Structures are given as C-alpha cells and as structure tokens.
C-alpha cells in the first residue's frame, strides 16, 4: 500500500472487514470450528478479540469472514429463521437446514454482500457435518478453510489432513492451522477461538496468543 498522506486515521473511512482465518473440520461424532480474532478497517485493527464463531443454534455454529457487517447480519437472520423453523418441526434443526438458510441469503444477495460463512454442527441424523456457502453454493466437505489467511495454509491442510481423526487430533489440527495462518496473514491475528460440538453440546475455548503453537522461526 502507498504511504497514507491523509490526516484522518484509516478506520474512519475504510470498510470494516474480518480479514480472517476460519476453519471447520468433522470428526466421527462432531465438528471442531476455529477462528482468529482480528477485525481490521484498512490498516487499523479495530477489534483484536472478536469471536468470529457465531451461534446459529444449540449445536450449530457458523464461522464469519469477509465484511464484518454483512457476515454478522447473515448470522443473525439465520439464527432467527432457525429458531422459527425448529419450533415448527418440534425438534433440533439439521445442520444442512442451517447451511441452506445461509446459502439462500448469500445467493440471493450475492451482488450486494461480501461475506463467506462456513456452517458446522452436529445433528442426530448426520452426525458432525461441515458446509461451505461461498458465493451462494452449498457443499459438504470433510473440512473447510476460509478467509484471507486461508490461502497460506492450503498446502498445510492438504498435507496434514487424514480421514478419521479423533476429536483431540482435530482440535490440534485446527490450532496449528490457525497459528500458521495468523503468523503469515496481516489481516489475521490476536487469539484463537475454538468450538467443539458433539452430541452433548457445544464447548467454547479461547487460546491466547502466547499459548499458540510456534514453528521453527518463532
């Protein structure tokens, strides 16, 4: 970026984006979601501790990336729609239903919105599931990464992912991936948030910056 000659700080005029690294992975019996915590407006970090893992229902969460306002709004709308839906059917909603609701909004307003949500959770019919909704498509994947930091870790996740990992392996995988991405992507950083969802419920965890795994040059 060029040197900023303006007298105003960047955050007065730049759009607020979650920059970000988000990741979700399924294991037998549940899912693990992870995200960093940096929100930037241009070159300024406006929030260094934002939790980008947003609740859609008891056992369904989504990870936010892209424009902070767009992502939060989609999550709130789907949270409402899911509550109504689960009352109507009389039981906990399926993860696929939540993902479809997110996809419907992303697709219908694809020109105006610029946010990507990864939806993951547990339901009794399908167990742990991860869905991507980029640009309005709906696709189930064993794991997914998103946000600006994800580019730097595609190679790492491709190499390290194995089928049928245990819950603890998945948590370690998520933490390692987030740590690597946060150290290379200027728009990702802060702390790492983790949510593990299984039949019993959702467990939230926060890993502080100095407790993240380090690699050879750190």
């Amino acid at each position: 970026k060029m040197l900023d000659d303006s007298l105003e700080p960047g955050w007065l005029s730049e759009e607020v984006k979650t920059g970000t690294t988000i990741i979700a992975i399924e294991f037998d019996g549940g899912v693990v979601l992870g995200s960093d915590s940096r929100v930037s407006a241009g070159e300024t970090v406006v929030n260094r501790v934002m939790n980008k893992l947003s609740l859609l229902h008891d056992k369904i969460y989504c990870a936010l990336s892209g424009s902070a306002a767009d992502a939060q709004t989609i999550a709130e709308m789907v949270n409402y729609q899911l509550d109504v839906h689960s009352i109507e059917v009389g039981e906990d909603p399926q993860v696929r239903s939540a993902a479809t609701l997110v996809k419907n909004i992303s697709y219908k307003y694809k020109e105006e919105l610029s946010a990507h949500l990864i939806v993951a959770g547990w339901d009794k019919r399908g167990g742990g599931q991860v869905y991507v909704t980029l640009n309005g498509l709906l696709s189930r994947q064993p794991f997914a990464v998103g946000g600006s930091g994800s580019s730097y870790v595609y190679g790492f996740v491709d190499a390290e992912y194995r089928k049928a990992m245990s819950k603890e392996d998945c948590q370690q995988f998520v933490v390692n991936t987030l740590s690597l991405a946060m150290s290379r992507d200027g728009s990702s950083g802060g702390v790492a948030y983790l949510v593990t969802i299984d039949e019993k419920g959702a467990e939230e965890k926060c890993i502080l910056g100095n407790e993240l795994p380090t690699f050879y040059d750190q």
Partner: protein
Amino acid sequence: MERNLIDSQIKGVSTGTTILAVTFNGGVIIGSDSRASIGGYYVSSKTINKLIQVHDRIFCCIAGSLADAQAVTKAAKFQISFHSIQMESPPLVKAAASVLKELCYNNKEELQAGFITAGWDRKKGPQVYTVALGGMLLSQPFTIGGSGSTYIYGYADAKYKPDMSKEECLQFATNALALAMGRDNVSGGVAHLVVITEEGVEHIVIPGDKLPKFHDE
C-alpha cells in the same frame, strides 16, 4: 481467495509459478514446476525449465515475466563468468545473487521478475538468496516464491527443520511443490529439482503422475 496479484497481472508469457530453494546439511535443493502461461488461462508450455545454471555450483530460478527473466539471467551469467575469470576462483553464491540484485534494482521500473539464487561455495557452504521484485536481497535458510508459494507458506513454516538430511530435504521440497501445484492453476506440469553439493550437481525430474498425492486425490 487472495492471489499473488503481481504474477497474475503480468502481460505476455509469465511463469505464474512455484519456486523454492532449501538448504540441508551439506547442500541445497532448488526446485520449480514447469508451466508457462499467458494471462492465467492458456498454458503456453508444459515443460519449461525454470532452473538456470549460472555457474558450476550456482543455480537460479525465475518467477514473473519469462522474457524479463531470460534477459536478466543471460546478462547475469555473463557477468558472473567474467567475475570468476578475473578472481581466478569459483564465484561466491552471494556474488551471483548480488549481480542479479543490481540488475533488478537498477531496472526496477521496467522489470517484473523475481529470483531465487541457490548454490554451494567454499566460503559459506550451501546458501539461498532471494531477490524480490524491487531489488531487495535477502539470505534465508529456505525460501519460496511465485504465485503458487502463497498456498504453501503454512506447510513450509510447519515442516522446515534446520540441518535436514538430503533425503528429508528432497521429500520436503517435493511435497511443497506438489501441494502448490495442486492448488495454483498457473503452476503445474513436472517438478524439477536440482541438488547442489560440494561434490556436484544432480538434476531430478518428477513427472506429474509420480508426485506425492494427498488426501483428496
């Protein structure tokens, strides 16, 4: 998805590429893919060699505009041989890297190419230098470059260890190239690897179907 925008905006034939160089205990491995593309949608060559030998134990690899890179390496090769004749000894890797750096820095307005120089010399043993787009020269234990390198920063950070053996290093370089070629659409073809040690230079070519495969392939 973020891309290395410099590479994909180059007009004409560009190497949109993955290149890397890694030191190990006793030598250095320099590697690249083999695809040359125009505008990111047409593959103009599937088997181009991006590893240029500038002296007996010094190689460099190119990323960016192919024309610029060839012109610069030709000039550099000449200057390095001349320097080596004058000094009556094989050139230092740092000297070769410096020559490239001077050319890139002094012509920074016109050129759009970045280089990795790797080699072995008697003074400092195996070394890797990177010359960035504007002409910055940096020495590192290993380095990655080109559009495909974006996708393997995480892998390289996690898996590199100082003082690897030659076999471990070959595995690291091959995996890194395979992973990058698997995600970057302007990198591909075969993997070229050159192992440089005090004893000599060994060129290894790994065709696409013999590259390591990962979970979804």
